[in-house]
């Protein structure tokens, strides 16, 4: 065959483009934030995976990292922040508290943020090491790649 060209499918291109350009919004409430900061800074360098740009506005973010304990008082705030994000959007719950409430099985703490917003990737650990957070990000990238044509906003409109 003459010429220089590649063939691919639109879905694969779209997934590839999306998974390497995640703007993330850190929703940090507790000590896991230290691990997030470590993961985000130069030593572990989340930028290697295309998620280096932190947007401190949910309206410009694709990915929300919920890092730390979410109380019942904070739950409406988290829901509002999630609703403000534009589609398509993904959620990673980082740390035992965000995943399941952790050691705080009491009157004040939400037992897992999946009770408030849909979660794509759970990263357990108390706290998880930065490598775990990066692995969660890689798992999310794999998920985004496979999502392909199945766009979320289309899903939402039909359902």
């Amino acid at each position, binding site marked *: 065959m003459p010429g220089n060209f590649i063939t691919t499918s639109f879905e694969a291109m779209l997934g590839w483009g999306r998974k390497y350009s995640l703007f993330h919004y850190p929703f940090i409430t507790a000590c896991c934030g230290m691990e997030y900061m470590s993961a985000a800074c130069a030593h572990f360098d989340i930028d290697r995976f295309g998620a280096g740009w932190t947007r401190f506005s949910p309206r410009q973010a694709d990915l929300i990292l919920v890092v730390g304990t979410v109380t019942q008082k904070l739950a409406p705030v988290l829901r509002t922040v999630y609703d403000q994000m534009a589609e398509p959007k993904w959620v990673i719950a980082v740390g035992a508290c965000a995943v399941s409430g952790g050691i705080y099985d009491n009157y004040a703490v939400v037992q897992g943020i999946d009770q*408030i*917003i849909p979660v794509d990737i759970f990263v357990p650990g108390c706290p998880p090491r930065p490598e775990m957070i990066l692995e969660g990000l890689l798992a999310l990238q794999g998920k985004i790649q496979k999502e392909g044509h199945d766009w979320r906003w289309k899903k939402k409109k039909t359902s």
Partner: protein
Amino acid sequence: MEEEKDVLSSLRAAYPGDVLEAGAPFGDETIVIRPAALPAIMAALRQSPYEFTMLLDLTVVDYPDRPERFEVVYHLLSIPRNRRIRIKLSVPESAPVVASLTGLWKNAEWLEREAFDMFGVRFEGHPYLRRIFMYDGFEGHPLRKDYGLRHRQPRIPLRK
């Protein structure tokens, strides 16, 4: 310097009927007083010669078996004299009302709001007594012993 050595006995002499107990268990000077005498005794402790200028902490202990169920505990620190004292008083569940100390120590405002939030003890004369940790609409007081261990009150409807 001599008179400040014995805060407990001077208090006992000054308020004979109001100081129910005075002692130093585990080396911490503690007095138990009648609730009605709280404003007078605290105002005296705030001033010379005691000069307890700092309200370190204000907490409540719930003793469900006692007739006077809630024990309010104050911790004071005298920065000029480098002394501490603990003041306790008990109030019944039927009327858990204590005088507010916001006029003496400004930080009592938040401490009393916390005690009200967690135990339902009301502080008379507080300028703005509402919940500080839990949200508006929360029912009950979560640190009371009869608050259910597994009792949950989600603020927003959770996802199915």
